[in-house]
């Protein structure tokens, strides 16, 4: 078996996976997925086609047409593979329902672009006496927009086709600008816009490399989570991206840009599974302080805390597990039980000894890996293992009796720990729960909405446990153990690499990941340096790497959410 896949909630979404035909597919929340599988013999190819994500699409439109042009509509959901949506981008296609959405969004954008109030700035020409049908004007428009939208120059035939579509549609609709909008809709719906399709370029030192345009895209989407801007496209046109020293200069410029923080946010949003947190719902009667606004701001809080530490202050990644400095606003203040002086976002410093310290005590983590009406040490422990340690926890067997665990009003088993312990008397369950629960139980002083508590049903909560053969008590102490442990570092490095490449780890990745790991230690675990090191690696630009990727023993499979 090559792996199992979880899909974000959504209906009727076809997924197409580069996996064996016999792969069992776990399709959580899909009503009637249509699944097309690919013959097993192709499963080991490195993909050269990645679908752009919703944030990338939105960013592209804003960059090309300006913030006035609104992108309204629902996108086909992304797919998490091997724990990352970025890896999923090279597994997904576009379904029939999805295409209708993309076409609708595209028409809406195109109509705005040609609308009278934007025409002058975005189109810049009209049919004239010498050019009554407007073919010269249409040609100019697509020369300019084609490069930005397809992230490479248009081929002459493509340009001719767009002009022809414009003129034919203008004739049918009796309006040049309507014709332009029709052709623009086609461009926005085309595979070269919706997918990043690698093109081979000249080899470098014996490696097969992608061409300069594809290099610009790889850099830009990795560092900025955005399509290449004018500067990068100009560099690609001049062939600068094919020269390592020129690449290094460009990477330095890109990291110095304010857009770099967007790229870091995009990575951590994906890595920490923060993308769908705003769909998180809690039982209103049990957690009345929780709301969808809290959920959305909890994500923002974590991302702001991370970019403050890792980008603005160029900090040590390991401090994320212990930091007492956390972004805060008045929506979140009630759940953290602290005053918030500012009306907007600010930073709150918890004092030494306070129960809140580090990533594990943030609501984005605590609430997301809980049930609607109670905590789940198992889900929390599993999230720590899988997300932050890149371990794999098997799904529970289908026939488990959860009655004891779920009975929160059990008169004798008052705490979650006591109820879980009863469950663990079953040896089959215990084998996995001993991997997840001890770390999850460390967080039990934070309820299912992430609020601090000291007792459960009147009984004091025990948060002791051990990690890496070291005893600890409580979330802050667990964070300190993580700060000193090498495994979270390894996990971050390989996750960042997988994110950058948009695919699973392959055997041939082992040397580059090992080198990145060593370099990361050498630079004091600064995230900025890890990202720079990846962007400067020749492997980052490789086209269809030579040896087929195969799952390496001991490296992670896909995250699956179990029932507990």
């Amino acid at each position: 078996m090559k792996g199992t896949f979880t899909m974000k909630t959504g209906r009727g979404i076809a997924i197409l996976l580069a996996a064996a035909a016999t792969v069992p597919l776990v399709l959580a929340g899909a009503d009637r997925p249509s699944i097309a599988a690919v013959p097993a013999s192709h499963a080991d190819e490195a993909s050269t086609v990645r679908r752009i994500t919703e944030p990338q699409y939105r960013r592209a439109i804003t960059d090309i047409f300006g913030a006035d042009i609104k992108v309204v509509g629902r996108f086909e959901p992304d797919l998490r593979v091997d724990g990352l949506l970025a890896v999923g981008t090279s597994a997904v296609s576009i379904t029939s329902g999805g295409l209708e959405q993309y076409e609708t969004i595209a028409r809406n954008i195109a109509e705005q672009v040609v609308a009278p109030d934007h025409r002058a700035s975005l189109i810049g020409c009209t049919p004239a006496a010498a050019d009554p049908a407007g073919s010269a004007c249409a040609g100019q428009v697509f020369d300019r927009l084609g490069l930005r939208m397809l992230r490479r120059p248009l081929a002459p035939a493509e340009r001719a086709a767009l002009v022809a579509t414009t003129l034919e549609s203008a004739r049918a609709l009796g309006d040049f600008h309507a014709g332009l909008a029709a052709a623009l809709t086609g461009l926005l719906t085309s595979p070269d816009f919706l997918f990043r399709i690698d093109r081979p370029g000249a080899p470098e030192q014996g490696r097969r490399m992608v061409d300069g345009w594809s290099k610009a895209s790889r850099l830009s989407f990795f560092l900025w989570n955005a399509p290449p801007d004018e500067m990068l496209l100009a560099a690609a046109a001049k062939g600068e991206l094919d020269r390592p020293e020129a690449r290094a200069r460009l990477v330095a410029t890109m990291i110095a840009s304010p857009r770099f923080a967007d790229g870091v946010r995009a990575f951590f949003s994906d890595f920490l599974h923060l993308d769908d947190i705003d769909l998180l719902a809690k039982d209103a009667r049990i957690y009345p302080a929780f709301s969808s606004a809290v959920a959305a701001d909890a994500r923002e809080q974590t991302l702001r805390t991370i970019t403050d530490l890792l980008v603005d202050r160029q900090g040590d990644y390991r401090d994320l597990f212990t930091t007492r400095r956390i972004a805060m606003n008045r929506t979140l203040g009630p759940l953290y039980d602290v005053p918030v002086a500012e009306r907007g976002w600010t930073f709150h410093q918890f004092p030494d000894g306070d129960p809140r310290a580090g990533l594990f005590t943030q609501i984005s983590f605590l609430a997301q890996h809980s049930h609607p009406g109670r905590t789940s040490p198992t889900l929390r422990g599993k999230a720590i293992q899988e997300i932050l340690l890149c371990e794999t926890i098997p799904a529970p067997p289908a026939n488990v009796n959860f009655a004891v665990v779920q009975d929160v009003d059990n008169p004798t088993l008052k705490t979650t720990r006591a109820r879980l312990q009863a469950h663990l008397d079953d040896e089959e369950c215990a084998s996995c729960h001993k991997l997840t629960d001890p770390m999850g139980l460390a967080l039990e002083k934070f309820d299912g909405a992430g609020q601090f508590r000291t007792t459960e049903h009147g009984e004091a909560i025990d948060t002791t446990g051990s990690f890496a053969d070291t005893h600890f008590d409580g979330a802050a102490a667990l964070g300190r153990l993580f700060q000193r442990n090498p495994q979270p570092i390894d996990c971050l490095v390989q996750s960042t690499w997988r994110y950058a490449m948009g695919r699973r780890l392959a055997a041939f990745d082992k040397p580059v990941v090992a080198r990145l790991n060593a370099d990361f230690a050498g630079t004091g675990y600064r995230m900025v340096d890890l990202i720079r090191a990846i962007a400067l690696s020749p492997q980052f630009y490789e086209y269809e790497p030579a040896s087929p990727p195969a799952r390496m023993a001991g490296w992670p499979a896909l995250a699956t959410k179990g029932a507990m």
Partner: protein
Amino acid sequence: MRRTIGRAALARPLQLAALPIAAIALTGASGPTGGDPHQRAFVLSNIYFAAAPEDGVCQPIAAGALESFLASLSADEQAALSAPGKRAELEKLMGERLGFRRMALRAGNSGGRSASARLPADLAPGATPTPEQVRAIARLNDFPKGRGALAFQNHVIAYDSCTNPEDFPQLAKGYRTYDGATAFGMNLDDKAGRAGFTGPDGESGVDNQLWRAIGCVAAFRESGNPATAKGTMFSARAPTLIAISGIDDPRNDSDVTVTVMASADAITKNAVGGALARATFDADPDPALRATTRGRIVDGVLTTDPFDIRLNYKEQILDAPRILKGARIRATLQDDGGIEGGFYGYYTLASFYSSIEQMTVNGANLSRVSCPGVRQAIDKLADGYRDPRTGRFTAISSALGFFGVAAFVNDGAQAAR
């Protein structure tokens, strides 16, 4: 103006001298989970006239203005207009006979059919008129001299039995006051005079002449029922805050500092519709909306010395601050961080009358209130803060109950000092 209440007069100079400046400064970007353990603060979700837990004393309840008007008509007219279905016609007739006016100051629905007012040239469209402009509008639209008031959130100018109840004493016929023996409140003057009530828990000499005056008005009886009041949020867009500082023992502390403040931050509702606890509110920097006194906590019950306070009251179409003089707080501090209790003090007549004026006869008719009846009763029963010049009382003893949840106060005014 001299107070008539001894204790209140004595307490005040002391408070001002001894208050710690940084009493409730919760500003700053750091702090422990749970906030400063020496401080507690609350946002009040409802402040209401605590109704006496006594039934059967207001039979029948006080008549509204419309009923009094009907009773004043000839037998023939009464016969023609007494059917409930004739109510709109009756209201129209009352307005015509008594010369009521109601005119819209801006476009749009202003809570009833209103002709558009002629406006002075210096009034910008949509702007709130100054008092001078209000007088000008009244003149331009032929209101009786010196009469008329803004209402309905300044969308209309009106002249009627609520804006000017003194002009319509005939509508007070059928009004009645509360003659029960029990009422919420405190003994404010340390005397057990004739007018005193017995509190629900047996406390004697309770001063609450306001309930005496309005306790048989249907609308007040209902909103004052504590069970109803607990589930209702009032003035949530301009709530009142109470902060206690200097707490050494949250159950028993002989000396704490208590500050009442206003906030312009609306109360956020939680997912089950109650007030969201532990939210941060900016204190209104207006010094008029802030008052501090000393208090003590005994077995979890806070009692303060008397002080003068001004409480925002902005609800629906009303914006009528409540001004209480010589008021004390007595309230239970709850384990979940909430508070429940009351403000007990002398409600100034001017501030109470403002709330009546703003409701206009339209609002009064909808809630079966006779503004002239209320006005006459309060004028008669007022018992505090005699104006030495006129010899009249300017305030009335009252009991305002409240409910609140834990909150944080961001007191920019304090920090700035």
